[in-house]
């Protein structure tokens, strides 16, 4: 652990130094070694101070939001973004907040700098779900504001940007993701630090409101931690890997604390979990592309706690493979598109057998889904689900769903989903059928950053 920590600290430190050197000290040849060191330290100190300032700013903003009564927020003095290079004359002309006539006529060079304030992009996504029908295994509420996700996204400094997504659910508040991304590291490295959805397969990385269906696949619920999935505090490092021409190859290595829903549980500090992901992508033409991935996750689970066994011996290994094929004709991109995706998951979970002996339970699950954009306003989709349970591999749940989405605009969606499931009913020791109709209203306020492809 110490070795690892030391290596990581060195890596981080040297990367930041490198980045700063590359940008702020292009000509160091004429400076003596000692003073270079000095300048470096100073630059680092400066960065630390700005970061601390940013954190304080974010905190106060969060507090404001929590208190949830600040509609008059933007009326204060307007601050121009330091990086937005206002043209001379632009500022002195408009001391009062009345840039209206000014903007109409005098716009050369001022358009961007005028409106961009130092505030982060703030958005709220409301996710309202209603459910009808019969499901005795995993019933959900008839009507609920399932989640209100507040997003705050900003560029921190020339070296980093930060994204925070705070989700207010029916049961409480949860930092879904909050991480800083260092975008200017040497050697093509991309470093993310914070709490984030792990790069494990595809569906695990997608926020609730961006899912192609109202719910997550059965296999996510059975094997990969349910709605929250593998979502933990940790560090992620990724890099493009050398590949043949026109192939995109990216490797990601992540270390987390080891606490993720019901998948991983860390009892000791060294019980960290790791996630590795390899992504292969290729354009098959300008309209069609193929996206493949393989993922691995490993961490401790809670099965050994309170038994005579050493809890440190109980691990969960997860493997996944995903494949996506997309079609979107460029000339009619807003009218037609098709996406087919399938993900396979294997779980190997150490646990106690009914006879109280140590065993490794293997379980397999998958889903396959397709979405077709019929026209500018309607999308059709279907999904097939099949998954064993992590703790009982021989009991396989099966299901399918079909969904219809209506888009009044880019900023709202109305959906209806029919869901069938043949689910294991443990208390009664038999399979039971679930037939449900779900509907959902999604709406976006403010500036929500684009989602990764």
């Amino acid at each position: 652990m110490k070795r690892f920590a030391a290596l990581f600290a060195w890596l981080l430190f040297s990367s930041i130094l490198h980045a700063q050197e590359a940008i702020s000290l292009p000509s160091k040849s004429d400076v003596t070694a000692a003073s270079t060191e000095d300048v470096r330290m100073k630059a680092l100190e400066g960065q630390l101070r700005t970061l601390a300032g940013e954190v304080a700013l974010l905190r106060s903003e969060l507090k404001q939001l929590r208190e949830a009564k600040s509609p008059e927020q933007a009326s204060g003095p307007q601050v121009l973004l330091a990086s937005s290079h206002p043209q001379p004359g632009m500022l002195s002309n408009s001391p009062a907040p009345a840039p209206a006539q000014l903007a109409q006529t005098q716009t050369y060079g001022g358009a961007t700098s005028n409106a961009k304030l130092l505030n982060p992009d703030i958005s709220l996504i409301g996710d309202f779900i209603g459910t009808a029908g019969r499901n005795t295994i995993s019933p959900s509420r008839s009507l609920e504001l399932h989640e209100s996700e507040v997003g705050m996204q900003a560029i921190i400094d020339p070296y980093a940007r930060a994204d925070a997504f705070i989700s207010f659910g029916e049961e409480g508040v949860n930092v879904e993701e909050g991480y800083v991304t260092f975008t200017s590291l040497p050697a093509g490295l991309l470093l993310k630090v914070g709490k984030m959805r792990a790069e494990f397969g595809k569906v695990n990385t997608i926020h609730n409101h961006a899912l192609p269906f109202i719910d997550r696949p059965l296999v996510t619920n059975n094997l990969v931690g349910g709605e929250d999935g593998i979502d933990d505090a940790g560090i992620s490092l990724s890099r493009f890997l050398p590949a043949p021409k026109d192939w995109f190859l990216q490797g990601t290595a992540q270390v987390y604390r080891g606490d993720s829903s019901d998948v991983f549980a860390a009892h000791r500090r060294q019980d960290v979990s790791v996630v590795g992901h390899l992504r292969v992508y290729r354009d098959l033409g300008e309209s069609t592309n193929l996206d493949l991935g393989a993922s691995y996750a490993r961490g401790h689970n809670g099965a050994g706690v309170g038994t005579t066994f050493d809890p440190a011996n109980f691990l969960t290994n997860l493997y996944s493979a995903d494949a996506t094929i997309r079609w979107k004709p460029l000339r009619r991109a807003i009218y037609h598109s098709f996406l087919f995706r399938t993900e396979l998951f294997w779980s190997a979970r150490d646990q106690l057998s009914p006879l109280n002996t140590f065993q490794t339970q293997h379980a397999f699950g998958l889903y396959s889904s397709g979405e077709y954009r019929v026209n500018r306003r309607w999308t059709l989709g279907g999904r097939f689900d099949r998954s064993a349970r992590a703790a009982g591999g021989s009991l396989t749940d099966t299901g399918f769903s079909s969904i219809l989405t209506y888009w009044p605009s880019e900023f709202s969606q109305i959906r209806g989903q029919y869901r069938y499931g043949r689910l294991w009913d443990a208390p009664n020791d038999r399979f039971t059928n679930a037939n449900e109709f779900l509907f959902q209203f999604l709406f976006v306020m403010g500036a929500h950053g684009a989602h990764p492809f």
Partner: protein
Amino acid sequence: MRNVSIETRVLALLAAFALLSAVFPRPASADNKLNVMTATTDLAALAQEIGGDKVTVESVARGYQDPHFVEAKPSFLLKLRHADLLIIVGLELEIGWLPPLISQSTNPKIQVGAPGYFDASRFAKILEIPTGVVTRAEGDVHPLGNPHYWLDPENGLRIAKGIQNKLSEMRPNDAAYFAQRYDSFEQRLKQADEKWLAEMQPYTGRKIVTYHRSWPNFAEHFGLNVVGYVEPRPGIPPSPQHTVELIGLMKRDSVKVIVVEPYFDLKTPNAIARDTGAQVVVLMPSVGGEKEITDYFKLFDYDIAKLKQTFDTTK
């Protein structure tokens, strides 16, 4: 056995990354050309005019693609990560796809605010900047102004000047070359513009309807009068009620031309045209929209020829 320390594995992974980084450093641009990426083809065409053979230029979006809705494909990352300069349209035109591409590119040179990040809108004359309260009740509004500003040759010239300064700043040794290319471009463009203006002169003040608000700069420069839009609000698909209103307006004002961008469905425009006796014309908002439109000059040549033809047949 089971407890084979996780740290060791992580260590190995990190070490492997570090090693890979060391073994495969980024190839320095072998031919010493500046590697310029642009968001759209028009900016690529302008950069090529100024950069000549000292640069390689490529655009992320294609000319026949709706620049609001480009997909942030990983294949673009491969190109962006080696770029020395990224030229964008700005005004939030690319907000749906460019930010993740930039931050994932692992290229410090083109990050927002870095020397290789060039927002062309800062040099252009921008129209339709909303005043007063801006809400999405207006549809997909651009709070900073209409981003389709490149369809005015004067803006083309302003952007080219900006690019010339930027390239000279990045390659001071070639400054004279870029200055000479700019002068040549300015001369040719002014000449061509005189010709275009003369060609459009007989149609000054003609009323037209366009699908999306892509043409305010074009209309202003060439003296056309855009009186309505097929979209009820920017980014909102045509609705029956709005279409009926538009037909009424077109009949009243005897508007005979409907301009449509190549990435919109022709069904509604054709229906409106049948009802009003107007004609639908597909104009190209960008270089590369048709194979023959290979540069900034041919873009106007194409659009003006099409417009003239349409005006002449709809007297």
